[in-house]
């Protein structure tokens, strides 16, 4: 009991996630800045931002529904942290696992987007509402490719549990070569999920100010920011667990190092995308996802089915 409470709250649970999330935010901002020929922020900048937001006054618009307005940031954070417990990190076993936990993780990762939608919608500002509509429209575009990109490897491993997938792939590390297309699709879909350029349409500041978060301030905005930071880590961990199942059976400290490296690799890839692309329009984004990303995910499924029939059995 005390052990699992420790792993939920401290390590590798909430506190670790928050610290790692802030560190990854620094890493991301620094890489982004260096690629843009800038200095970038000092290492404590994300922490300082968070402390500043936490110390500030919460302003809730008169028209907004205060209960939903206040609940959404907490819900977003809770959902992402919960999803984290089912992802195998530096061992083959996650903190918790059961048959079918991959589905639960994917659904838990959908909740933050829903909270962005509800939070934006109920803050009743015009900009927030447009941002909220965009967030939910975007959800329909990237969610299917993301699900399918995880589904392929799961089919090959013949399990719905992320931990069992990790066991399978660390036994046969060669098989993840077949999942490379899925990895690329997953990364692109993750950009949409994390609302980063070129898919930062719901918070395009030059069009709709702060998008969903226009009316959020102080502690509530801080929670949202922290939730997004954590979501980056959870998303990257998911990618690492499904597509990069290396170094899971080694000495724990070394495994931990591998895990951090894998997550930072994903974050660096996201930062690179952020640097080289311009923001797309919502119609272009949906076109892209359904015309190219979803068919590519089908191809990945096909590859997995063929490989499974011929080699894995």
């Amino acid at each position, binding site marked *: 009991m005390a052990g699992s409470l420790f792993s939920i709250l401290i390590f590798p649970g909430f506190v670790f996630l928050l610290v790692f999330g802030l560190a990854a935010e620094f890493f991301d901002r620094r890489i982004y800045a260096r690629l843009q020929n800038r200095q970038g922020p000092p290492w404590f900048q994300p922490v300082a931002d968070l402390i500043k937001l936490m110390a500030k006054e919460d302003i809730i618009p008169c028209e907004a529904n205060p209960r939903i307005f206040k609940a959404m940031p907490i819900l977003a954070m809770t959902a992402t942290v919960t999803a984290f417990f089912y992802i195998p990190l530096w061992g083959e076993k996650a903190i918790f696992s059961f048959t079918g936990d991959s589905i639960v993780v994917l659904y838990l990762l959908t909740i933050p987007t829903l909270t962005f939608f509800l939070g934006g919608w109920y803050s009743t500002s*015009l900009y927030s509402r447009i941002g909220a509509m965009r967030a939910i429209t975007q959800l329909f575009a990237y969610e299917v490719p993301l699900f399918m990109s995880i589904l392929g490897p799961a089919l090959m491993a013949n399990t719905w549990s992320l931990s069992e997938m990790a066991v399978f792939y660390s036994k046969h590390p060669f098989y993840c070569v077949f999942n490379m297309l899925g990895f690329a699709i997953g990364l692109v879909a993750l950009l949409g999920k994390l609302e980063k350029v070129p898919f930062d*349409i719901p918070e*395009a*500041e030059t069009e709709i100010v702060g998008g969903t978060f226009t009316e959020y301030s102080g502690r509530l905005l801080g929670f949202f920011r922290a939730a997004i930071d954590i979501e980056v880590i959870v998303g990257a961990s998911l990618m690492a667990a499904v597509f990069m199942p290396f170094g899971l059976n080694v000495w724990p400290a070394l495994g931990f190092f591998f895990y951090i490296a894998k997550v930072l690799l994903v974050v660096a890839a996201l930062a690179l995308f952020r640097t080289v692309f*311009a923001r797309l329009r*919502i119609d272009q984004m949906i076109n892209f996802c359904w015309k190219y990303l979803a068919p590519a995910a089908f191809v990945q499924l096909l590859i997995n089915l063929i490989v499974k029939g011929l080699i894995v059995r």
Partner: protein
Amino acid sequence: MRKVIIPIGPQHPALKEPESFQVVLSGERIMEFSARLGYNHRGIEKACEERTYIQDIYLTERICGICSHSHSSAFVQAVEDIAGLEVPKRGLYIRTLIGELERIHSHLLWLGVAGHEIGFDTLLMYSWRDREVVMDILAMLTGNRVNYGVNTIGGVRRDIDADQLKQIAKAVDTLEDRTKYYIDIATKETTVIERLSGVGVLSHDDAIRLGAVGPTARASNVKRDVRKDDPYAVYAELDFKVVTDSHNDVYGRTIVRMGELLEAYKIIRQIVKKIPDGPIAVKAPRKIPAGEAVSRYEAPRGEDVHYVKANGTEKPERVKVRAPTLANIQTVAKMLEDRQLADLPIVIAAIDPCFSCTDRMISVRNDGQKRANMMKWEDLHTYSIEWYRRKGIDFSKVNEKFKKAVK
């Protein structure tokens, strides 16, 4: 779907200056667009009438933060025209040189802003970094980065030496390299093309009908450039071509501006080579004889028109400014017809708007409505005192105390 009206401005991250746009949206689609000017009016035209010509040079320079040299040049040209002054060649060359350097810094700045509006911040960071090269040159030549203060009636105030000319030539080489790289990005990077091409279409006929000027018109294949049509300064002696494009959209406007950068480098190289020796200014009289003149100047954003009327004193009787944005702002509503909200920032940015140049005074017409009426200054004063008194705020005692304290 229900229509919503969303305000873009007066305070909005897409706008660098306060201006109000009302957009009627149906979903993401723009149904109606209306612009309302007047948030940035500073009364410079009126202020010019109360200052001497020399003071006015510095005042007109501050009409615009980017094309400061354009406005002061246009003003000075008009005054020189009235006074019948013959500006020495070297002075004109220096004036042209600063004008072209200003065009470079304005276009590079625009490129960065355009990148930012389409969410491509990397382009912003890179082009603004390279803009520093030309800013340094301007600072070296004039002592200032933005308001150069180099014009004076009858010529220019600062001379250029051979060493400076060498540095300019070197900077131009660097800038040309970088510009070619940006042209490469703007014409090859997929997401940039996706966001720019087919957006903000202004047909050739519409551009003429709505009186577009500058790069906005030239991107709709209207060959309109004051430097060629009505050459001022030394443009008649220089070899350059007017860059036009027939894409008619924001992509075309980008290509035109980038092409103009290359032309500006060409012009500067010629100036560096051709600049004659001699005096840089003639002495101008303090009192300008009565008369009037219109002067045209091709600012980076388009044609800038100044009208000056002199009445024989040391102050002008009337100064009228028509900044290029006023000519172009009409086209924005046309460009945005049936477009998406996401295109709005880049379409507005593509005319390279400068609202502080454009702002006009608004007069209230009494067209039978209850609330609209004209008030004299004294009436307004008494009205405001009454209004506050009714709210329970009375300043009369404070005023008396203040008067006593002053005594």
